[in-house]
């Protein structure tokens, strides 16, 4: 509060301190604007003002409504309010001039009070406002407006020409100008003023006469000094009769020579001709306006010379001869003598160096010469007598105060279109959203009904299933009504918000004008097509390189590419492609400021440039070179070129393989390069499915906008991960991690690839997932099948998670795993021999015995427990991410029950110790799979995701379908009947515990469950297990699969 009041007082001070800088306005000023304007800092004020000004400027140009005056009116009022000091900066006169020019042809505005006020403002700014009034009067502008006559009369009154003023009033009343009452009252007031004044004068005279003991005498030599510099004029002091005569006329005579009269023709002033008619007045007043002055921006025009030399017929120094048709006859026949010097513009002598002091610079003679009004009029007449025609849209270019270039006009149109489309898009979405909400409300009602009936029949188990089925149907129904690109969810979910953004961006993109017309798309010349035609075997590298990349991009639909590269400008306002510099030691000084703050110090700039261009960041951390600034300084001597090249390759790890010589229609950036793509690999497809799935009926049926309001960066975003990894330079120090500064080698069946120092032969493409592929490979001198995981991820996230896991769990790892990071992907080699994923097991579901199920679930529990201890959430416990190590080949390690499973993929994992901003469960893969399950709605901890993952896997193993649960009033239970299973009691306990863990520590829950499950392992169990495993190994072990394959291929070869 205190601060606020202080601020208030400060604001008040602003006004108090700069009163003299505020021009008074007749209609007053809004104090808030005024204070705002006065209080703002120079720079801040400038930017906002410029922005607003720019908006007005473009509005003037692109106004499409039927009231253009409105824009001008607002613009002028805004200028008045925001430039209280007036002056050149406000550009008021130019603005008014342009406005008047632009609207001059519009007859409908002639009696619009706004138009009049515009003119009146212009009148205040020009030298001879009376001219303007007579011009307006002549043109018939505002002749039916009372205000016109009032102002006009005021002007005369100010010049003490009361008679004319009165005439003006009378004419107004005659013409019944509206509002007439106001005019009449003003007239009466005027008359009162005049009478009072004359009375005062008379009284004074009488007093003087009364006092007049001494008759006024001319004092000698008093005040006879000439006044005025150039044209000396002696002051007149009269006495006696002469004095009387002048005093009588004092009120009714204009003491100054009226400029308009002197301009029009030489008329000898006749005191007796006071009864000059109104008609005459208007007639004579118009004349100066007939001749247009020189337009400002005309090139190669002769400068105006002394007007009496050689051009005797012109009566104005800067007149064009063109339309002086009617006037000459009225000119006097003699040429008045004018001194040469009289016409010279007088320059203020200036002794101050203008470059030092800008304020007191010399006034440039003749630049702004000429009255506004004359220019306005000239504009009107210019078009008639133009010798040349401008072939561009001049009125658009110079519409407002400033000028616009063609490109700016076009860009403005472009921007507007984009905006309109976007708004329309949003509108549609909003409409649909409202519609959906209605539907949801309806369904909510239904649900409630169902629930009430459900509660009524709570006791009956058989009928219990009915309503759930019904809800399921409802879900389906609502899902089918889902509109793509739109999500309704009750949780703040970063993925959803992303989806919305991207879809929006996509929409905008699609409607951008580039895709208009039947124009042919830019087809890039394909050299290889041609060369192939000619039977020339193409260079082996390039096409292969493409082929190699493709399989990894299998699931990247064109949509995803679009959404990656074409984020609307608003979305990608921040820098995306550029690696933020984190070498603080070097950059600190330059980071948030312009690198070269001191313009005087020239070496500063160059040094700064070198600093920035020296390669130092990525490659150093990845290649395990200590990044020390001294070294970098030495590097200054390096050839610039080489350093640049190096830099391009290393700063942008994601640059595509250099060996690709062939061009395809271009994918602009690799997925990692932009922000929105950050959801790694197949993100786009995942998102789209999730956004569709999102419409389930949650516990609380609310549409929240929170998702839009906080666009949280997804924790799975590659950008985000890269940043995270950057802060851990020790990663690259690991012996298992190899950075290869080259594109990923191509992977082909039966070909060898080099990993580290070993060659591996690729045997089979084993599993294709969205983000990665698994291959079976054998080392060169061995038949052992091992697995490599190939992904297009450029962030070694798997490695990171594994490393952290090892670090935090302090356990010796029993297997080896090496990571090879390439420019465009990553290969992880796993030491496991003869293993396969759970996915294979599910394909042979008949092999899943009770024992195997128990073994797997038990292993899952232990693995996840380990992960959670290390504060890592896996997030995607699905069959394809888990390797099942077939123990049949190693029958004697049965005591190592907990090592049957291994995780190959951590793409969806989150390191909660490092990623502190993950609070919700949304976005995890498991959650996406279980989308629609109400149980998710009341979970908050990300750890619980893995519990559901385990439950889901167990459910899959037991029932061959995904988890289905319901709320029985106190606990979450399976929809399936467990009791019929072998060890049904065990499973029942298991599911109840794991589904209802709520806020307990997941580690303890997992340990508890594992301990419980451990009880099952006994000798009979083991014998059964071994049998089952043997079967599994025989049928679906990698050796078996390969063998089958071989046989098939040999079979197929035989007939050929």
């Amino acid at each position: 509060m205190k601060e606020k009041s202080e601020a208030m007082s400060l604001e008040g001070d602003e006004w108090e301190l700069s009163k003299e800088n505020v021009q008074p306005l007749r209609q007053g000023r809004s104090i808030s604007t005024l204070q705002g304007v006065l209080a703002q800092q120079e720079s801040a004020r400038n930017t906002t003002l410029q922005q607003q000004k720019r908006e007005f400027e473009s509005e003037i140009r692109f106004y499409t409504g039927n009231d253009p005056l409105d824009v001008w009116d607002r613009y002028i009022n805004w200028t008045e309010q925001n430039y209280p000091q007036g002056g050149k900066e406000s550009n008021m006169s130019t603005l008014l001039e342009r406005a008047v020019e632009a609207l001059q042809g519009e007859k409908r505005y002639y009696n619009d009070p706004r138009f009049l006020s515009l003119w009146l403002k212009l009148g205040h700014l020009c030298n001879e406002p009376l001219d303007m009034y007579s011009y307006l009067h002549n043109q018939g502008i505002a002749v039916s407006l009372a205000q016109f006559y009032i102002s006009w009369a005021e002007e005369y009154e100010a010049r003490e020409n009361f008679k004319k003023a009165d005439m003006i009033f009378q004419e107004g009343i005659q013409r019944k100008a509206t509002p007439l009452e106001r005019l009449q009252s003003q007239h009466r007031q005027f008359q009162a003023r005049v009478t009072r004044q004359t009375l005062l004068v008379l009284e004074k005279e009488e007093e003087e006469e009364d006092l007049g003991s001494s008759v006024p005498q001319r004092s000698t030599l008093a005040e006879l000094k000439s006044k005025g510099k150039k044209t000396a004029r002696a002051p007149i002091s009269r006495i006696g009769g002469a004095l009387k005569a002048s005093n009588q006329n004092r009120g009714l005579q204009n003491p100054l020579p009226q400029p308009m009269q002197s301009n029009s023709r030489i008329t000898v002033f006749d005191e007796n001709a006071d009864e000059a008619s109104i008609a005459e007045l208007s007639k004579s007043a118009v004349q100066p306006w007939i001749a247009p002055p020189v337009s400002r921006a005309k090139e190669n025009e002769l400068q105006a010379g002394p007007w009496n030399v050689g051009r005797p017929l012109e009566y104005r120094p800067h007149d064009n001869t063109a339309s002086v048709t009617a006037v000459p006859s009225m000119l006097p026949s003699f040429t008045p003598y004018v001194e040469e010097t009289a016409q010279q513009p007088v320059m203020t002598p200036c002794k101050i160096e203008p470059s030092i002091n800008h304020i007191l610079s010399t006034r440039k003679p003749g630049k702004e010469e000429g009255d506004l009004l004359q220019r306005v009029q000239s504009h009107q007449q210019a078009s008639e007598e133009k010798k040349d025609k401008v072939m561009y849209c001049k009125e658009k270019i110079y519409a407002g105060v400033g000028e616009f270039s063609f490109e700016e006009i076009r860009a403005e149109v472009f921007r507007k279109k984009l905006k309109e489309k976007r708004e329309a898009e949003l509108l549609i979405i909003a409409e649909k959203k409202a519609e959906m909400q209605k539907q949801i409300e309806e369904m909510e009602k239904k649900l409630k009904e169902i629930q009430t009936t459900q509660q009524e029949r709570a006791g009956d188990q058989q009928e219990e299933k009915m309503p759930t089925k019904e809800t399921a149907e409802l879900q389906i129904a609502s899902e089918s009504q889902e509109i793509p690109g739109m999500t309704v969810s009750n949780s703040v979910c970063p993925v959803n918000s992303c989806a919305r953004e991207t879809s929006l961006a996509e929409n905008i993109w699609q409607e951008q004008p580039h895709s208009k017309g039947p124009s042919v798309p830019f087809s890039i010349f394909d050299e290889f097509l041609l060369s192939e035609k000619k039977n020339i075997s193409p260079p082996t590298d390039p096409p292969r390189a493409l082929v190699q990349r493709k399989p990894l991009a299998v699931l990247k639909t064109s949509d995803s590419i679009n959404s990656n590269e074409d984020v609307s400008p608003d979305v990608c306002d921040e820098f995306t492609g550029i690696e933020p510099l984190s070498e603080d030691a070097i950059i600190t000084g330059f980071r948030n400021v312009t690198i070269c703050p001191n313009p005087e110090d020239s070496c500063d700039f160059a040094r700064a440039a070198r600093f920035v261009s020296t390669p130092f960041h990525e490659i150093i951390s990845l290649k395990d070179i200590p990044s020390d600034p001294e070294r970098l300084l030495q590097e200054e001597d390096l050839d610039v070129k080489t350093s640049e090249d190096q830099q391009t390759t290393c700063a942008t790890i994601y640059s595509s393989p250099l060996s690709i010589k062939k061009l395809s229609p271009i994918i602009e950036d690799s997925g990692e390069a932009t922000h929105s793509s950050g959801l790694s690999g197949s993100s786009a497809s995942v998102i789209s499915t999730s956004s569709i799935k999102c419409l389930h009926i949650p516990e609380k049926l609310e549409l929240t906008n929170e998702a839009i309001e906080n666009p949280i960066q997804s924790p799975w975003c590659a950008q985000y991960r890269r940043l995270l990894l950057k802060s851990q330079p020790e990663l690259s120090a690991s012996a298992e991690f190899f950075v290869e500064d080259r594109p990923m080698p191509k992977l082909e069946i039966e070909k060898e690839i080099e990993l580290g120092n070993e060659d591996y032969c690729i045997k089979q493409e084993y599993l294709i997932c969205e983000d990665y592929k698994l291959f079976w490979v054998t080392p060169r001198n061995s038949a052992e099948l091992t697995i490599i995981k190939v992904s297009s991820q450029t962030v070694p996230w798997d490695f990171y998670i594994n490393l952290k896991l090892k670090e935090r769990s302090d356990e010796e790892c029993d297997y080896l795993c090496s990571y090879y990071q390439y420019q465009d992907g990553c290969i992880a080699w796993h030491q496991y021999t003869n293993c396969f994923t759970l996915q294979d097991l599910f394909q042979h579901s008949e092999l899943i015995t009770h024992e195997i199920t128990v073994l797997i679930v038990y292993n899952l529990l232990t693995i996840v427990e380990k992960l959670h201890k290390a504060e890592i959430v896996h997030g995607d416990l699905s069959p394809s991410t888990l390797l099942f190590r077939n123990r049949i080949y190693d029958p004697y390690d049965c005591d190592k029950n907990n090592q049957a499973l291994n995780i190959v993929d951590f793409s969806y994992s989150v390191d909660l110790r490092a990623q502190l901003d993950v609070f919700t469960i949304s976005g995890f893969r498991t959650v996406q799979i279980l989308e629609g399950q109400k149980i998710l709605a009341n979970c908050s901890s990300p750890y619980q995701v893995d519990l559901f993952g385990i439950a889901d896997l167990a459910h899959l193993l037991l029932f061959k379908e995904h988890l289905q649960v319901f709320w029985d009033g106190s606990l979450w239970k399976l929809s399936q009947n467990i009791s019929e299973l072998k060890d049904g009691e065990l499973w029942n306990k298991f599911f109840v515990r794991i589904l209802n863990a709520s806020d307990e520590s997941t580690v303890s829950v997992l340990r508890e469950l594992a301990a419980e499950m451990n009880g099952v392992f006994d000798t009979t169990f083991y014998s059964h297990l071994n049998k089952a495993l043997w079967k599994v190994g025989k049928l679906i072990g990698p050796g078996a699969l390969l063998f089958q394959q071989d046989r098939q291929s040999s079979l197929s070869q035989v007939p050929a």
Partner: protein
Amino acid sequence: MRTHDVPTALGAVSSAGVGDPGLPAFLFAPPRPCPLRAGAGSQAPESLRSLQPASRRRATLRCWSHSHSAPARPCAERQVCARQEPRQVSARCSWHSPGKEVDCKDIPGRDRAKMSLFGTTSGFGTGGTSMFGSTTTDNHNPMKDIEVTSSPDDSIGCLSFSPPTLPGNFLIAGSWANDVRCWEVQDSGQTIPKAQQMHTGPVLDVCWSDDGSKVFTASCDKTAKMWDLNSNQAIQIAQHDAPVKTIHWIKAPNYSCVMTGSWDKTLKFWDTRSSNPMMVLQLPERCYCADMIYPMAVVATAERGLIVYQLENQPSEFRRIESPLKHQHRCVAIFKDKQNKPTGFALGSIEGRVAIHYINPPNPAKDNFTFKCHRSNGTNTSAPQDIYAVNGIAFHPVHGTLATVGSDGRFSFWDKDARTKLKTSEQLDQPISACCFNHNGNIFAYASSYDWSKGHEFYNPQKKNYIFLRNAAEELKPRNKK
């Protein structure tokens, strides 16, 4: 290999040659043998060696084509003839697999420039006609110039040819369809689309890095991008608060950076790897056009602002010049003196006039002048004269003469020293929105597309946009001084 070779996005010179078997493909050897990447293997030197014979062989081809180059000899026919020599074709397209080129080692080398359409020899102007056989009445190409294939779908805002460091000629054009396209221009005049990049807004300016490995693009989306032709990746390198109107690559002895001028009234200097500008200079108004030849840069702004910068050591304002023109500035180009140093600039205005302005002239009143251009029926006083905007100015890199293009759909060639007009083209049916010369001045490229000079009402999206190439070797030679 990487630094001096043709960037990947542009394709190997050899493979490009396939498209045009009759004419030179890799007669432009890389300037010098370059360090090889490890991946390139030991074959590369061989490929370099093989260059020599290849260019020799070209000489024979040239002789052949000369003997046949009667005025309207169809180019296609030449190609057909050439295809009858498949062995040479195969040899040509194997820059990267040099094992195949075996023969033709004994033909003496010749001056390579002379054998092409865009060489110094004349005859190209007539040759162009037959290439497209456009004898129809429509006057989209009244000058019968070579048409660039797959021209952009919307107005072309800027054109730029590759620097001399790159073998061959590559043309970049930015358009209002948000794209930047790249073509290889062969000496036959044939154009091969090479690559394309997109912005999220119209592209207003493009420029090349000095080594030809990168292209910088400025866009209405308020960003500038760097397009690395080796990897064919584009990354953002600059950010403004308003559309970026101009972009220039500055290569100084002690620094190199990208200069961007924007409608946000700033001129910014960027190192391509930092998200913060190295330097920001305030402009009095929105930047409308700029040109740069080290160590001089000139920026023309709205409200007729004109500022000259010097770039030595670091960019700094050199002088503000009162505009010699009375209307909006539209284009500016720096010209050089006899010593190849920038000495002044030509400034084009929206109202048909170009000013030649020297920075330090011995006699300002005499040396600086303006001339009218792009106006209709100049001397006929009865009808009003139509005045059009000057959309672009380009100086010939060899002769120092200049070309202007205008909204009237004409281009004109001028000799500023003799103060004469060298040539004016026929009128195209659309305005010419941009122009440029290639590095040796043999090719003049100009883009025919709507420049928005009459506002959106006159915009016809159906109208096709063209880029034309013209042999500029002869027509831009200055008049002999008597």
